[in-house]
């Protein structure tokens, strides 16, 4: 019996900390991922996403903190964790001097998959790489490498997928296929922790966590993350938004201005002050202004700019 039966969490880690030399990379990170949940892990470059994922699957030893992964202790039972987890590394880490088939075959043997040949052929079929199966993996384009890596880490039908930026460099169609696949896996009870920089992927996750400077800033469903920041946002439409942005930046109530094409999003936590500023500015500039629902992207940009204040700035 595994401890999983007594736990609803695929990942349940508390107070993870990690230093590299005197660099404090992950600070008191606690994550809870339910079974069958797609959990999005977001944060700027160098914020500690990869490091956290590596600690969860036992590839790095946390300096402090503990927890379980699929019910197994992340410190003591990494062998069991490895057997049941599919980890896709951020950097392509398959053997470039082996062919695609040889790579998959190696993985299949490693996990001692029953009916190995059939599983490998099926994976190749699913990838659409059957004809190129005897091509060296090193010769694949970046996007195809990602797709091969993804297929390889799902080969042994893991109960938890840890995917570190799995769709970086993957074209939109393949990305959509990938997310459809992830969603059907989740429906079958497989849990997924996926790090990403894409907002359209973030909104497809059941839960999100945002990390910056090694600190977990918020965690919850997209709606919870958004309301948690108590941000109100206005959209301004028109020309010469860059100038307007300069003007608005120091006005009362304005904490953040972001342009999206021909739209300027202005956000702040003081809703009333912001409303007054926007209305007067919009009237004087003759622009159309409209209060909109704060989006994830607005929230993340807000989190990112807030996080480098205080002691979080030390890297």
């Amino acid at each position, binding site marked *: *019996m*595994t401890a999983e039966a007594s736990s609803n969490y695929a990942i349940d880690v508390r107070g993870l900390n990690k230093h590299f030399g005197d660099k404090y990379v992950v600070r008191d990170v606690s994550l809870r991922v339910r079974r069958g949940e797609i959990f999005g892990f977001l944060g700027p470059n160098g914020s500690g996403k990869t490091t956290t994922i*590596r600690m969860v*699957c*036992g*590839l*790095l*030893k946390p300096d402090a903190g503990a927890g379980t992964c699929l019910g197994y202790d992340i410190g003591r039972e*990494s*062998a*069991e964790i*490895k*057997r049941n*987890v599919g*980890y896709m*590394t951020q*950097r*392509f*880490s*398959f*053997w*470039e*001097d*082996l062919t695609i088939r*040889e790579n998959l*075959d*190696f*993985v299949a*043997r*490693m*996990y*001692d998959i029953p009916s190995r040949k059939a599983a490998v052929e099926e994976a190749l079929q699913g990838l659409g790489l059957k004809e190129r199966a005897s091509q060296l993996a090193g010769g694949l384009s970046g996007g195809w490498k990602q797709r091969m890596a993804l297929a390889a880490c799902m080969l042994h039908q893991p109960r938890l997928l840890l995917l570190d930026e799995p769709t970086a460099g993957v074209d939109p169609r393949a990305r959509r296929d990938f997310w459809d696949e992830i969603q059907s896996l989740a429906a079958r009870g497989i849990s997924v922790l996926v790090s990403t920089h894409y907002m359209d992927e973030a909104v497809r996750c059941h839960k999100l966590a945002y990390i910056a400077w090694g600190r977990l800033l918020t965690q919850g469903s997209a709606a919870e993350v958004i309301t948690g920041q108590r941000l109100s946002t206005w959209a301004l439409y028109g020309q010469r938004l860059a100038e307007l942005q300069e003007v608005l930046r120091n006005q009362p109530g304005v904490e953040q201005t972001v342009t999206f094409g021909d739209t300027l999003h202005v956000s702040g936590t003081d809703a009333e002050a912001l409303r007054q500023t926007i209305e007067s500015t919009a009237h004087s500039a003759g622009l159309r202004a409209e209060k909109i629902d704060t989006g994830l992207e607005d929230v993340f940009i807000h989190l990112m700019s807030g996080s480098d204040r205080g002691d979080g700035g030390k890297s």
Partner: protein
Amino acid sequence: MSRRNPFSTVRWWSIVLKEFTQLRRDRLTFAMIVGIPIVQMIIFGYGINTNPKHLDTAIISADSSNITRSFIEALQNSSYFRIVGTLPNEAAGRAALAQGKVLFVINIPPGFTRRLLRGEHPSLLIEADATDPTATANALAAVNGIVQSVIQQEITGPLAVLRGKPAPFSVAVHPLYNPEDITQYNVVSGLMGVILTLTMVLMTGLAITRERERGTMENLLAMPSTPIEVMSGKLIPYIGIGLIQATIILLAARYVFQVPFFGNVGAVYLSALLFIAANLTVGITFSSLARNQLQAVQLGIFYFLPNILLSGFMFPFKGMPDWAQAIGNLLPLTYFNRLVRGILLKGNGWANSWPSVWPMMIFTFALMAVAVASYRRTLD
């Protein structure tokens, strides 16, 4: 309980297959496997085989007589020495040696002939440039024979009483250099250990650091493989390579250098197998310790130098100072050299081989433990 399995043959085999496949595609490594033994055999084997002759020699003659002229002529005739000129004094002789203009200076002291005729047993001095002892050893070894023949020819008639023992004059070789009997046989059989050390340690030294440097280690560590599977699986192909190299060397020794095989060739292979295992554990330990491939190569070379210098391959083991012998006694190559020379050249059997076998076994097991202990299971 979940099934725990510290050693799975399926996983192990997957690593063996992967290593073989990668090795097969790595042409440079493949060229090294065959190239290193051949190149080394040519360099060392040929260098020893030439038995250098016509070595430049200068004479300082403070005495000229039939006997000394006859001695010098005999030196020329022996074809080891080529007299390139005469020098006025000892200082000039030293300078010529120091500058490498000559390899030998033959110093005939004043009154040599007179003292010889009085039966005072004078000495001739040969100063040799011993920086390359193998170059001068054969020539010096020939000198005694030359002395005897000169005595036979020149010391005749009334002087014949001076014949017989002790010789009426002697030759002092300076600086005295008396190497153990290094012959071509000795070198060729010793080469097997040197080549195996070089290739086994260097190639396996890269085995794990290469994975780390290419980023594939993260993947390997994320899979359920255990250290013992990864290490032993990675080493298997190199055992094959080591045996191929041993075969190349044995074939060359037998058919190119005509080394006589007095002992059992099967025993040589068994010894080679043990020695390969010892070196693989060294390499894989370096591979775990090194942060990158460059460091692994540096460690390999660092290990290789004392091996080539202190194992009895380059210099006679018994002639080394105690501290050097102490270091040499820690190296498997020292035992392998003795073992293989013993088997090949002396026809040694099991009883005579055992004293060289057990130290290698201890070395192998000890380092295997170090290697497994130093294998990093995480990316820290």
